[in-house]
């Protein structure tokens, strides 16, 4: 079966681990346990009629304490850039990581997710704020790891994009 490596990228606590857990096991936890190092998960999907094994590299949140290693990105077919919709400042991290990834790997497919969409009251990001980044992504979507809204579709879109490239 064809394997595709996908990296989860974004600032800390934006919900990378939660999105993977929702996608792989269908569960969600409110408790925040920051990811140390690289966490690897996998799930099979069908894209364009073909079975595909997605190997998900959940990288630790990029911040002053930990920087994503370029070597971890090697071999990726695509990545998921996650923004926390309740924290505007996570947009900047996403932009930085996008630049870093493109510099390391060249342009590869990615989806841009505005996570925690269930927290409507605290929502702080709107689409124009991410339009530059969004134009390069193969999908920009609001999602919620908590309710599952938009999660399947986001991974499906990326899988689709990776098989055609």
């Amino acid at each position, binding site marked *: 079966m064809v*394997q595709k*490596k996908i990296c989860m990228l974004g600032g*800390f*606590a934006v919900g990378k681990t939660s999105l993977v857990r929702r996608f*792989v096991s269908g569960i969600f936890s409110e408790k*925040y*346990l*920051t990811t*140390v*190092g*690289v*966490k*690897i*998960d*996998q799930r099979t999907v069908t894209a364009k009629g073909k079975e595909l094994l997605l*190997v998900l590299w959940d990288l630790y*949140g990029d*911040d002053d*304490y*930990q920087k994503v*290693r370029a*070597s*971890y990105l*090697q*071999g990726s077919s695509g990545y998921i850039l996650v923004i926390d919709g*309740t*924290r505007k*400042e996570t947009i900047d991290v996403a932009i930085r990581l996008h630049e870093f990834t493109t510099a390391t790997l060249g342009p590869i497919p990615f989806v841009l997710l505005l996570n925690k969409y269930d927290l409507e009251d*605290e929502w*702080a990001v709107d689409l124009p704020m991410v339009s530059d980044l969004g134009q390069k992504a193969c999908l920009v979507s609001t999602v919620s790891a908590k309710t599952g809204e938009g999660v399947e579709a986001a991974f499906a879109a990326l899988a689709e994009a990776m098989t055609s490239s």
Partner: protein
Amino acid sequence: MPDSIHEHALFSAFDALIFQKTAGQFECLGGLPSWFPPSGVLQGPEGTPEKLLEVSFFLQHFLRDVGPWWESNKVGQMKSGLWSETAIFGEDVILEATAVYQGGQRYLVLQRFGSDMLPVQPLLQKAREEQLSHRASIHLHERTEARLGTQLAKSEQERDDLLAVLDGLRLGTIMTDANGVVTFLSGKAQELLQVDSAKVLGCTLPAGLGWKGEYTNRIEEMGKVTEAGRQPISVVVERKKRPSVSLEVDVHDDPRGSRKKILFLKDVTEVEELRRQLTGPTQFHRLIGKSPAMRAVYERIRDIATVDVSVLIQGETGTGKELVARALHDFSLRKDRPFVAVNCAGLTESLLGSQLFGHKRGAFTGAVQDHEGFFEAADGGTLFLDEIGDMPLPIQTTLLRVLQEGEIIRLGESRPRVVNVRVLAATNQDLPSLVESGRFRSDLLYRIRVARLQLPPLRERREDIPLLSLAFLEKARVIIGKIGVRDIAQTAMQCFLRYSWPGNVRELKGALDYALIHCRSNSILPDDLPPEFRELSPSIGSLSGPGVRDQRQEILEALKHVNGRRAQAAKLLNMSRSTFYRRMRELSIPMDDQSS
């Protein structure tokens, strides 16, 4: 291959999985660590350490990086960084791989860290959590600020919009607090009242606006009535160097507390002006009425007021003779001097004499002090002698002398005192017939009727009845305290219009007071009227207005008098023939063919 037992024991002590790479193959050295096989896919006989190298995506990735490095034959080690791989190790198992090149040998060491064994994890966790919670509190703060900001902006915007609408409607707005202190004055209100809000805010209405107490009292009174029973209050505001404005003031409770009030000021100056123009003068001094008969009276008052002669005012009881006298005084040059009214009826000769001319102490029993009479009291002004027909003859004689000589002598004195008094007399009797029967001195009659003024009875000016009754109602409902009664039902007004009013305007006023006291709704109904109105059922039909019955009667009587000859009847009634015919048709009087 390790050939020493010591080496084996040493590797085991690390609790690590150690491989040595020889000829492209990895071989596990020493014993298996305590964590092997892990809880995931390597469970079962297939799960050898070598298998782990095949199934781990991370290790494969790492080994791809390590390969070229090993080939470079540099002594040292290369670390993979921490990693976990759920499918193989389950949750919460973190490992690290280290590639070593030492003594020409290539080793791969896998170490496991429990979450408790990672000092870095709690530190990172704490740092990140703190950052999150700090951010959350800042965020909360920002959001609260933003929300308050928008709310404030919104309510200010709403207030501005509302004021713009009110100003556009030419409505001025004043708000007062529970103590009647002005808390707000809209731009329009400032313009209408020609005041500066800075001077009015914080003051009560009487203090801030300088309105007559009458207005502010009524506003206060109105505020105490339930909202449904409230009426707009008419206020006329005099303004510096600008025409005065007529306002209607509506008193509303502030929804935030009924002791706070909102006053809406409606500019009705134009409306008032139009109304005045449409209706002509409805009032003269304190006399009310716009009938031709009353207009003639007003004109006559104006004509004779300034001519300093005696006036005889004639009219039935209750027609307002004293009001005429007061008007005559107020329009005369004597207006700043006293106006004294005396009723000559019902007083004994001596009492009336001493009242009019005064007396000296001891002049008669009971005269314990010197007393100045009304003539002296009215010196320089006007003396109004009501019911002069009832004046005893001896007093008439004295009065005549006083009028001729311009001096009085107090009873019991002999010294004359000069007085300058204009006498206005009034009577409801036919003085010439009193002269004939010897009860009134003819020379006095000629003396006092230098000018004459006849007041019409109410039945001869029925068109004034609605105006009069509404004017009385307006005053009486405040005095009697029935502010809610606002008008007179058409049916009740019909009764008023049909009644003969022997007591004239005074009776009308009395009937209205009576009705108001009995009234239970907000308009006066026939049932509220005094008993004498009961028979006047309004069944005659609303077409027959004031005076209709009288006119029909008049024409019928005239026709009868001249044996049905219409031309003569018309002459008799001082009408042109065409008018006469028209009247007959209007009043449905049948035309007999034989008469011309």
